[in-house]
Protein backbone atom coordinates (compact mmCIF):
# COMPACT_ATOMS: atom_id res chain seq x y z
CA UNK A 1 0.00 0.00 0.00
CA UNK A 2 1.38 3.39 -0.97
CA UNK A 3 1.89 5.81 1.88
CA UNK A 4 1.22 9.53 1.93
CA UNK A 5 2.88 11.03 -1.14
CA UNK A 6 4.13 14.60 -1.20
CA UNK A 7 5.73 16.69 -3.90
CA UNK A 8 8.01 18.38 -4.49
CA UNK A 9 10.46 17.01 -1.91
CA UNK A 10 12.60 20.12 -2.14
CA UNK A 11 11.91 23.64 -3.34
CA UNK A 12 14.14 26.69 -3.38
CA UNK A 13 12.59 30.03 -4.23
CA UNK A 14 13.30 33.71 -3.79
CA UNK A 15 11.25 35.72 -1.34
CA UNK A 16 7.99 37.15 -2.64
CA UNK A 17 7.60 34.26 -5.10
CA UNK A 18 4.65 31.84 -4.87
CA UNK A 19 5.02 28.15 -4.07
CA UNK A 20 2.65 25.20 -3.94
CA UNK A 21 2.88 21.78 -2.32
CA UNK A 22 0.83 18.75 -3.22
CA UNK A 23 -0.28 15.82 -1.09
CA UNK A 24 -1.90 12.51 -1.96
CA UNK A 25 -3.16 10.78 1.21
CA UNK A 26 -3.59 7.08 1.84
CA UNK A 27 -6.54 5.76 -0.10
CA UNK A 28 -9.70 5.85 1.98
CA UNK A 29 -8.35 8.25 4.59
CA UNK A 30 -10.96 10.96 5.12
CA UNK A 31 -8.87 13.23 7.34
CA UNK A 32 -5.93 15.16 5.96
CA UNK A 33 -3.52 17.41 7.85
CA UNK A 34 -0.91 19.95 6.86
CA UNK A 35 1.84 20.59 9.41
CA UNK A 36 4.79 22.96 9.45
CA UNK A 37 8.03 21.76 11.01
CA UNK A 38 10.94 24.06 11.72
CA UNK A 39 14.41 22.57 12.10
CA UNK A 40 14.81 20.67 15.35
CA UNK A 41 11.23 21.30 16.45
CA UNK A 42 7.98 19.39 16.53
CA UNK A 43 5.33 19.72 13.82
CA UNK A 44 2.72 22.47 14.19
CA UNK A 45 -0.74 22.03 12.70
CA UNK A 46 -1.68 24.43 9.90
CA UNK A 47 -4.98 22.97 8.76
CA UNK A 48 -7.09 19.83 9.09
CA UNK A 49 -9.62 18.57 6.55
CA UNK A 50 -12.51 16.19 7.02
CA UNK A 51 -13.17 15.09 3.45
CA UNK A 52 -13.27 18.38 1.52
CA UNK A 53 -14.15 20.59 4.51
CA UNK A 54 -11.50 22.52 6.43
CA UNK A 55 -12.57 21.88 10.03
CA UNK A 56 -9.55 23.39 11.82
CA UNK A 57 -7.68 26.21 10.08
CA UNK A 58 -7.17 28.48 13.09
CA UNK A 59 -3.37 28.13 12.86
CA UNK A 60 -3.17 28.91 9.13
CA UNK A 61 -1.77 32.39 8.36
CA UNK A 62 -4.51 33.28 5.94
CA UNK A 63 -2.89 36.45 4.64
CA UNK A 64 -0.40 34.42 2.62
CA UNK A 65 -1.28 30.75 3.05
CA UNK A 66 -4.16 28.93 1.39
CA UNK A 67 -5.14 25.31 1.03
CA UNK A 68 -7.71 23.26 -0.79
CA UNK A 69 -8.83 19.68 -0.93
CA UNK A 70 -11.03 19.32 -3.95
CA UNK A 71 -13.10 16.12 -4.11
CA UNK A 72 -11.87 15.18 -0.65
CA UNK A 73 -8.74 13.36 -1.83
CA UNK A 74 -5.59 15.24 -2.90
CA UNK A 75 -4.71 18.54 -1.29
CA UNK A 76 -2.63 21.57 -2.21
CA UNK A 77 -1.01 24.06 0.16
CA UNK A 78 0.00 27.40 -1.34
CA UNK A 79 2.10 30.27 -0.06
CA UNK A 80 1.94 33.61 -1.85
CA UNK A 81 4.10 35.57 -1.42
CA UNK A 82 6.74 33.54 0.40
CA UNK A 83 8.83 35.16 3.14
CA UNK A 84 12.24 34.21 4.51
CA UNK A 85 10.61 32.89 7.70
CA UNK A 86 8.58 30.38 5.71
CA UNK A 87 11.65 28.21 5.21
CA UNK A 88 10.68 24.91 6.85
CA UNK A 89 9.45 21.41 6.12
CA UNK A 90 5.78 21.14 5.22
CA UNK A 91 4.38 17.78 6.26
CA UNK A 92 1.15 16.21 5.08
CA UNK A 93 -0.53 13.47 7.10
CA UNK A 94 -3.72 11.48 6.81
CA UNK A 95 -5.85 9.31 9.06
CA UNK A 96 -8.91 7.13 8.54
CA UNK A 97 -10.91 9.31 10.92
CA UNK A 98 -9.96 12.32 13.03
CA UNK A 99 -11.17 10.63 16.19
CA UNK A 100 -8.67 7.81 15.91
CA UNK A 101 -5.68 10.19 15.87
CA UNK A 102 -3.59 7.58 14.10
CA UNK A 103 -1.67 9.70 11.64
CA UNK A 104 0.49 8.56 8.77
CA UNK A 105 2.90 11.23 7.61
CA UNK A 106 4.45 11.85 4.24
CA UNK A 107 8.17 12.53 3.87
CA UNK A 108 7.57 16.27 3.69
CA UNK A 109 8.40 19.12 1.34
CA UNK A 110 11.45 21.13 2.35
CA UNK A 111 11.14 24.81 1.42
CA UNK A 112 14.06 27.21 1.34
CA UNK A 113 13.26 30.86 0.77
CA UNK A 114 16.25 33.02 -0.27
Amino acid sequence: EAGVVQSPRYKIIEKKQPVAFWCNPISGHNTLYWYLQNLGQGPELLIRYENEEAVDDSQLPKDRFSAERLKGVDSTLKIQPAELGDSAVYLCASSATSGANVLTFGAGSRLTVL
Partner: protein
Amino acid sequence: TQLLEQSPQFLSIQEGENLTVYCNSSSVFSSLQWYRQEPGEGPVLLVTVVTGGEVKKLKRLTFQFGDARKDSSLHITAAQPGDTGLYLCAGVLARLTFGEGTQLTVNP
Protein backbone atom coordinates in the same frame (compact mmCIF):
# COMPACT_ATOMS: atom_id res chain seq x y z
CA THR B 1 4.98 28.62 26.13
CA GLN B 2 5.23 25.06 24.86
CA LEU B 3 2.28 22.88 25.86
CA LEU B 4 4.47 19.77 25.93
CA GLU B 5 8.00 20.02 27.28
CA GLN B 6 10.45 17.34 26.27
CA SER B 7 13.78 16.67 27.96
CA PRO B 8 16.52 16.39 27.20
CA GLN B 9 16.54 18.27 23.90
CA PHE B 10 19.69 16.48 22.76
CA LEU B 11 21.16 13.16 23.85
CA SER B 12 24.32 11.50 22.54
CA ILE B 13 25.20 8.09 23.96
CA GLN B 14 27.24 4.99 23.17
CA GLU B 15 25.76 1.80 21.82
CA GLY B 16 24.56 -0.45 24.63
CA GLU B 17 23.67 2.33 27.07
CA ASN B 18 20.18 2.89 28.48
CA LEU B 19 18.32 6.19 28.27
CA THR B 20 15.07 7.86 29.26
CA VAL B 21 13.27 10.71 27.52
CA TYR B 22 10.62 12.72 29.32
CA CYS B 23 7.50 14.51 28.13
CA ASN B 24 5.77 16.83 30.61
CA SER B 25 2.76 19.12 30.61
CA SER B 26 0.41 20.90 32.96
CA SER B 27 -2.51 19.73 30.81
CA VAL B 28 -4.39 16.46 31.10
CA PHE B 29 -4.51 14.52 27.86
CA SER B 30 -7.02 11.94 26.70
CA SER B 31 -4.11 10.05 25.19
CA LEU B 32 -0.48 10.55 24.35
CA GLN B 33 1.59 9.33 21.43
CA TRP B 34 5.29 8.83 20.74
CA TYR B 35 6.78 9.18 17.26
CA ARG B 36 10.25 8.68 15.82
CA GLN B 37 11.43 10.78 12.90
CA GLU B 38 14.52 10.09 10.82
CA PRO B 39 16.24 12.72 8.65
CA GLY B 40 14.33 13.47 5.47
CA GLU B 41 11.28 11.49 6.58
CA GLY B 42 8.02 12.19 8.35
CA PRO B 43 7.33 11.10 11.93
CA VAL B 44 6.32 7.47 12.40
CA LEU B 45 3.93 6.53 15.18
CA LEU B 46 5.49 4.18 17.75
CA VAL B 47 2.79 3.90 20.40
CA THR B 48 -0.36 5.42 21.84
CA VAL B 49 -0.98 5.35 25.59
CA VAL B 50 -4.47 6.01 26.87
CA THR B 51 -4.87 5.00 30.51
CA GLY B 52 -3.14 6.75 33.42
CA GLY B 53 -0.27 4.57 34.66
CA GLU B 54 -0.27 2.51 31.48
CA VAL B 55 2.99 0.86 30.44
CA LYS B 56 3.60 -0.41 26.92
CA LYS B 57 6.62 -2.23 25.60
CA LEU B 58 7.87 -2.33 22.04
CA LYS B 59 10.96 -4.56 21.94
CA ARG B 60 13.63 -2.53 23.76
CA LEU B 61 11.39 0.54 24.14
CA THR B 62 9.19 1.02 27.21
CA PHE B 63 6.57 3.76 27.28
CA GLN B 64 4.79 4.94 30.41
CA PHE B 65 1.84 7.31 30.80
CA GLY B 66 1.71 9.22 34.07
CA ASP B 67 -1.04 8.45 36.57
CA ALA B 68 -2.52 11.92 36.09
CA ARG B 69 -2.18 11.69 32.28
CA LYS B 70 -0.03 14.83 32.20
CA ASP B 71 3.33 13.28 31.48
CA SER B 72 5.01 10.34 29.82
CA SER B 73 8.41 8.73 29.50
CA LEU B 74 10.21 6.65 26.92
CA HIS B 75 12.95 4.30 28.11
CA ILE B 76 15.30 2.57 25.67
CA THR B 77 17.34 -0.38 26.86
CA ALA B 78 20.68 -1.23 25.25
CA ALA B 79 20.44 1.49 22.62
CA GLN B 80 21.60 0.72 19.09
CA PRO B 81 22.73 3.04 16.27
CA GLY B 82 19.44 2.29 14.52
CA ASP B 83 17.62 4.03 17.38
CA THR B 84 19.11 7.36 16.27
CA GLY B 85 16.43 9.90 15.41
CA LEU B 86 14.13 12.65 16.66
CA TYR B 87 11.68 11.35 19.27
CA LEU B 88 8.46 13.34 19.52
CA CYS B 89 5.67 13.09 22.04
CA ALA B 90 2.21 14.33 21.06
CA GLY B 91 -0.78 14.88 23.30
CA VAL B 92 -4.41 14.70 22.27
CA LEU B 93 -6.60 17.61 23.38
CA ALA B 94 -8.76 19.49 20.90
CA ARG B 95 -6.04 18.71 18.41
CA LEU B 96 -2.88 16.64 18.38
CA THR B 97 -0.09 18.83 19.80
CA PHE B 98 3.57 17.90 19.47
CA GLY B 99 6.47 18.54 21.79
CA GLU B 100 9.71 19.99 20.45
CA GLY B 101 11.39 16.61 20.33
CA THR B 102 14.49 14.90 21.67
CA GLN B 103 17.30 14.37 19.19
CA LEU B 104 18.95 11.04 20.05
CA THR B 105 22.28 9.98 18.61
CA VAL B 106 23.59 6.49 19.38
CA ASN B 107 27.25 6.11 18.52
CA PRO B 108 28.65 2.71 17.56
